[in-house]
């Protein structure tokens, strides 16, 4: 009698509204509105450390963000943003400087104005450099000295790519940067074709019109140049004390990053999917007690660096853990069998998809693609992962391992292993 009840409810499918890139007179604007309660606008500028004319200038420029401009002073920016209840932040990567404002819906006019007035009319005064910027630059340098993992990755980039991508994110401890250097770098980089605007929680048309209004006087051509990256490889050892013993073993490659390496890092990553479990990564099971291996994959527009960050309490423990990681990589580079590859691809796809859920992830995933005018959607990332075949994977992984590795040891260099001791 009881007929199978069909649900009368129609499950409303909320179509995800993905960022479409609109090129409005030279400025690329992409906006996503998923009806979230807060909105954010990020100005992504090609002003990362690889483009800097003098070491550390990009770091200085990042810390000059939101200081006085023709429209308001540094204090005025802080106080007014507090009144609106927004958060302003700046972050620097090797390729991009991201200036971000997060705010409640409806306040976009003010916050876009704060961002554009910095882009177009920052004053770069000498006293602001001395009083506000340079103390923060110095404290960030000091802070980085306490982080051996960061130091290892910085050194690895320098060894792997020499100039360009190899230049450090941070300024040197005793630098000769002046406000004039920063001003001229900003002038050469804040141009129409170098800036992309990414909005979340904001309507594309609104954002485009706001950006157009305030950036219409910006010059078009940039005088920036960065040579295309090439990969070198090599070894360096840095004495450090007090921190955890750290080794970075990496393999870089020039050229556009490939999805096969994403799958490889997903396969090897010992981070378990369930907390406090061991996970099925080939590295996780064999790691000595107290050591940790982190799989690092850093894709850039024209190069990528893949590697392991091995950390442990003593040099010998790090050596054991490093051997385990290198052995696992060598085994994987012979190719993955059916299920292993499927698992790796599923993990990689989930990581790519869940990264887009957060604002930072969205900006970092879409950012470089938007700036370089490529297809900018999650779908394209996922389909490229779907297309990874067993043979393509084996080929990519074996070519990756064949190059001269990057090896960085940070800590007690007397006990930390050398590259040949890890089985490379």
């Amino acid at each position, binding site marked *: 009698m009881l007929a199978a009840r069909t649900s009368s409810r129609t499950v409303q499918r909320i179509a995800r509204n993905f960022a479409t890139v609109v090129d409005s007179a030279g400025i690329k604007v992409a906006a996503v509105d998923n009806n979230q309660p807060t909105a954010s606008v990020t100005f992504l500028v090609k002003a990362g450390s690889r483009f800097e004319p003098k070491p550390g200038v990009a770091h200085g420029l990042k810390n000059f963000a939101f200081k006085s401009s023709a429209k308001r002073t540094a*204090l005025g920016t802080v*106080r007014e943003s507090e*009144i609106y209840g927004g958060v302003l932040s700046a972050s620097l990567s090797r390729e991009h400087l991201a200036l971000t404002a997060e705010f409640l819906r409806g306040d976009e006019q003010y916050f876009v104005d704060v961002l554009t007035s910095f882009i177009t009319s920052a004053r770069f005064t*000498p006293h602001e450099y*001395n009083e506000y910027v340079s103390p923060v630059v110095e404290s960030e340098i000091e802070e980085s000295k306490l982080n051996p993992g960061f130091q290892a990755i910085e050194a690895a980039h320098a060894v792997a790519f020499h100039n360009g991508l190899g230049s450090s994110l941070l300024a040197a401890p005793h630098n000769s940067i002046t406000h004039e250097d920063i001003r001229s770098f900003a002038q050469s980089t804040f141009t129409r074709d170098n800036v992309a605007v990414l909005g979340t929680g904001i309507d594309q048309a609104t954002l485009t019109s706001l950006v157009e209004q305030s950036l219409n006087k910006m010059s078009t051509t940039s005088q920036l140049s960065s040579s295309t990256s090439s990969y070198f490889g090599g070894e360096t050892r840095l004495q450090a004390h007090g921190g955890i013993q750290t080794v970075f073993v990496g393999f870089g490659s020039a050229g556009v990053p490939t999805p096969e390496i994403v799958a490889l890092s997903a396969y090897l990553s010992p981070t378990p999917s369930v907390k406090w479990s061991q996970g099925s990564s080939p590295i996780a099971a064999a790691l000595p007690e107290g050591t940790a291996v982190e799989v690092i994959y850093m894709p850039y527009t024209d190069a990528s660096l893949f590697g392991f960050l091995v950390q442990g309490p003593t040099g010998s423990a790090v050596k054991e853990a490093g051997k385990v990681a290198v052995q696992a990589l060598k085994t994987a580079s012979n190719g993955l069998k059916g299920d292993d590859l499927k698992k790796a691809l599923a993990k990689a796809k989930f990581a790519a998809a869940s990264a887009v859920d957060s604002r930072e992830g969205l900006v970092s995933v879409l950012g470089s693609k938007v700036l370089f005018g490529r297809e900018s959607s999650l779908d394209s990332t996922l389909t490229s992962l779907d297309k990874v075949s067993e043979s393509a994977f084996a080929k990519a992984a074996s070519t990756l391992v064949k190059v001269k590795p990057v090896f960085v040891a940070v800590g007690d260099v007397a006990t930390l292993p050398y590259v040949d001791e890890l089985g490379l």
Partner: protein
Amino acid sequence: MPLGLSLAPKVLASKSLTSWVTPIAHWYANLAGYRKYGLKYDDLIIEEYEDVQRAIGRLTPRERYDRAFRMKRASHASVLHSVLPKEQWTEPEKDVRFLTPHVQEVEKEDKERAMWDTVFVSRK
């Protein structure tokens, strides 16, 4: 108020008033005597104020060095109870306001801070 009140902007705004007052101003500045000790007018700004200290910090290293040098030379001349030899006197065209703009900027910042500290916000 380290700078004190000044009628100069009012005077400079009017052309005829400027032409009247300028000779008197030059005469007064020479009479004041600081130029005979190699000082500039801005060296006379009382520096025991936080604002002025911050302004001095904003001078270029060269300006800071020169300021200290002029003061040292002037105090030495004062110890000797005599003015400097005439070739070391400050020439009127070199007697520029190098510190006043910085002091004014610091004062403006203080004013702005006070404004934000006491601002009354109403949403439109």
